C-alpha cells in the first residue's frame, strides 16, 4: 500500500507547526532519500496538487525538461541544486543549497540572526539591530540573508517583517495591524483556564490593550514569535554534545511544558554534529524552568478526575473519545489531543484481571487506578 504523504511541521499548508528539528529539502533530479533529512515522501512529489510536485516524478516536466526547485519558499533554483532550511520550531538555524556551502545562523536570545558563518566556521555576515529591530549594522556577504530580526524574513521592498499573523515595521516599532487575538485576551469565566490567558495575563495585563506595540514595548525581555501575543524570553547556557554553546530561549507559549522538545534537540545535535546551533528551553514568567514534565515516582502530575468521565456526553474540556467502540468501552480511550494524555476504562475487564482505569500521562507513562475516586461497577 502506498499513500499520499505530506510534511510534518510548520510552513506547509495543513500541517502542524513543529518544534523539533525540521529540515526542508527539495531536489530537482532526485526525490528524498532520507526521512530524517527530508520528510517528503515520494507520493508528494508525484501528486499534481502538491506544492512539491515534480512532474513525472523524475525531475523532468511533461516535455522532459529539468524542473527547477519547487519548494514554495525557495522557488527559482536551478535543477540539481538542493535548497535547505533547518528549523528549531519556527526559528531558522541553517540555510543554503547543495551546490554551495551551508550557512549557519548564530542567533541571539531573541532568535535574531547576528552572525552567519559558512560550513568552515568563517564569518559570512554580521548584523546588529536596535532594540526594536531596525537594522544597525549589516556587513559581510554581498547576498544578504533574508531572515534577520527575531529570525523573521524582511521584505526588502516594504521594509516590513512578516510574522505570520501580521507585518511589523522595525523603523517605527509598531505592527501594521491591530493584535489579531484581541478577543482571546478576554477571560472565559473558568478560573483554571483564565490562569493562562495569552499575552501573560490577557485583558488583565494592560500592555495587551495596546494593540500595535511590539512585545509590550520591551522587545529585549519579551518576544512575539508569530505576531499574536508577547511571551517571556530568557537566555540560558546549555552544554551539548557538539560543544558547549550559549543557548537561547524562544517561547512558543509561556508555561508550556516541552520536555520532549529537548529530547528531540539532543538527537538533532548528534545528527548535525560539528555544528553549533542554539537550543530553546522554556521558562515561565518567574524564570522557573518548565521543561521538566516528569512525574514523581508515586503519583502522576495533574491526572484528570475520573468522575468527570462518567458521562461520555459531558467530558472535560479538551478531551474526546477515540476508539472503535462506544465511548467509555474497552475499545478505545478518552484522549486529550493537545497533551497526548489518555484515559482507558478497563473496569469491565475479563475475569482473571483486576478491573481498573489506566491513565497515560503526557510523557506516555501509564498509571492504574483500582478503585479510588470512581464508582465501581
Amino acid at each position, binding site marked *: 500500500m502506498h499513500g499520499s504523504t505530506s510534511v510534518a511541521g510548520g510552513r506547509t499548508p495543513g500541517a502542524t507547526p513543529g*518544534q523539533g528539528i525540521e529540515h526542508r529539502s527539495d531536489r530537482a533530479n532526485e526525490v528524498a532519500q*532520507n526521512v530524517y533529512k527530508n520528510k517528503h515522501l515520494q507520493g508528494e512529489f508525484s501528486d499534481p496538487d502538491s506544492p512539491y510536485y515534480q512532474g513525472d516524478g523524475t525531475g523532468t516536466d511533461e516535455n522532459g525538461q529539468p524542473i527547477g526547485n519547487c519548494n514554495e519558499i525557495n522557488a527559482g533554483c536551478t535543477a540539481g541544486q538542493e535548497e535547505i532550511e533547518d528549523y528549531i520550531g519556527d526559528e531558522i538555524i541553517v540555510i543554503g543549497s547543495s551546490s554551495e556551502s551551508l550557512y549557519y545562523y548564530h542567533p541571539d536570545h531573541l532568535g535574531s540572526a547576528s552572525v552567519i558563518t559558512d560550513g568552515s566556521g568563517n564569518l559570512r555576515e554580521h548584523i546588529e539591530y536596535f532594540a526594536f529591530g531596525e537594522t544597525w549594522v549589516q556587513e559581510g556577504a554581498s547576498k544578504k540573508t533574508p531572515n534577520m530580526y527575531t529570525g523573521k524574513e524582511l521584505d526588502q521592498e516594504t521594509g516590513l517583517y512578516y510574522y505570520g499573523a501580521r507585518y511589523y515595521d522595525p523603523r517605527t516599532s509598531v505592527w501594521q495591524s491591530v493584535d489579531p487575538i484581541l478577543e482571546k485576551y478576554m477571560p472565559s469565566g473558568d478560573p483554571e483556564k483564565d490562569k493562562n490567558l495569552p499575552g501573560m495575563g490577557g485583558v488583565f495585563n494592560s500592555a495587551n490593550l495596546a494593540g500595535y506595540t511590539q512585545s509590550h514595548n520591551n522587545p529585549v525581555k519579551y518576544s512575539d514569535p508569530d505576531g499574536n501575543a508577547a511571551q517571556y524570553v530568557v537566555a540560558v547556557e546549555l552544554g551539548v554534545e557538539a560543544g558547549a554553546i550559549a543557548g537561547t530561549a524562544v517561547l512558543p507559549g509561556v508555561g508550556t511544558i516541552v520536555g520532549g522538545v529537548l529530547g528531540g534537540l539532543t*538527537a538533532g545535535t548528534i545528527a548535525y554534529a560539528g555544528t553549533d546551533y542554539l537550543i530553546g528551553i522554556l521558562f515561565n514568567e518567574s524564570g522557573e524552568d518548565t521543561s521538566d514534565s516528569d512525574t514523581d515516582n508515586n503519583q502522576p502530575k495533574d491526572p484528570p478526575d475520573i468522575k468527570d468521565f462518567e458521562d461520555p456526553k459531558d467530558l472535560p474540556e479538551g478531551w474526546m473519545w477515540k476508539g472503535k467502540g462506544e465511548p467509555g468501552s474497552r475499545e478505545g480511550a478518552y484522549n486529550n489531543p493537545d497533551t497526548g494524555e489518555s484515559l482507558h476504562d478497563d473496569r469491565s475487564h475479563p475475569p482473571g*484481571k*483486576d478491573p481498573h482505569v489506566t491513565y497515560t500521562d503526557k510523557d506516555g507513562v501509564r498509571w492504574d*487506578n*483500582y478503585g479510588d475516586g470512581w464508582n465501581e461497577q
Partner: protein
Amino acid sequence: MICKLPLSNTKWLDHLNNRKYDACSIGLIPENSKSFFQSGLTFVSENVRCSNLGHYLPDQSLASIDNTINSSTGWVKRTDVFKEVASYIYKTYGIAKDLTLILEAGYSDVGDKFLADKDYIIYNGRPFFVQKIDNSSSELIEKYLRISRSRRLLGVVINDKGIHDLGTSVPLAFFCDSFDLDSIMILERRDHPLGI
C-alpha cells in the same frame, strides 16, 4: 529479559496475526511479509520465566504476571519494560547508519497539538512518529515508544531508502504490543542484513 515468543500458543499467534492485520490495514507492512520473519521476541520483567510464557495471555499486564499489582487506592505506576525494549532497539539497529524507526502515533490525529514538538510524518492521512535510530538515543526511543501506545502499538524498522516503499516492502523488523502494552514483541527478518 528477552524471551522467545510462544507462537505455538494460539492466543499469542492470534494476537500477533491481529496486529499484523492492523499494520497491513494502515499500510505499515505488506500482506506478504509473514514468511520473511524468522524470530519472534518479547520482553518481560525479571521475575517472569520465559519457559512459562505460554501460560500467560498477551493482553495480561506484567504486574499481574509477576504478582506485583499494587491495588492500593489512588494512582499506581504501571510496571513496564520499555527501557529494556528501547535499549535493545538502539543497540541492535543503531549500529547501522541508515535505519529509521516508524511508529503509529498513538491516539493522535493529523493536526493534534500534541504532535507539534515531535518528529513525525503523515502517511495515508495518519501521523507516524519517526526516529533515525543511530542519531537517536535509547532514552528518546523509549519516549517515542511510550507515546506511541494507544489500544495497540505498531511499528517497523526500515532502511531509509525503503521509506518510499513503506507498506510494499518488508521492513527489517516489525513490532507490536504485548502484555497489555507493558512490553512489545519484535519480529525480525529472516534475511536480516545485520546478521541478527
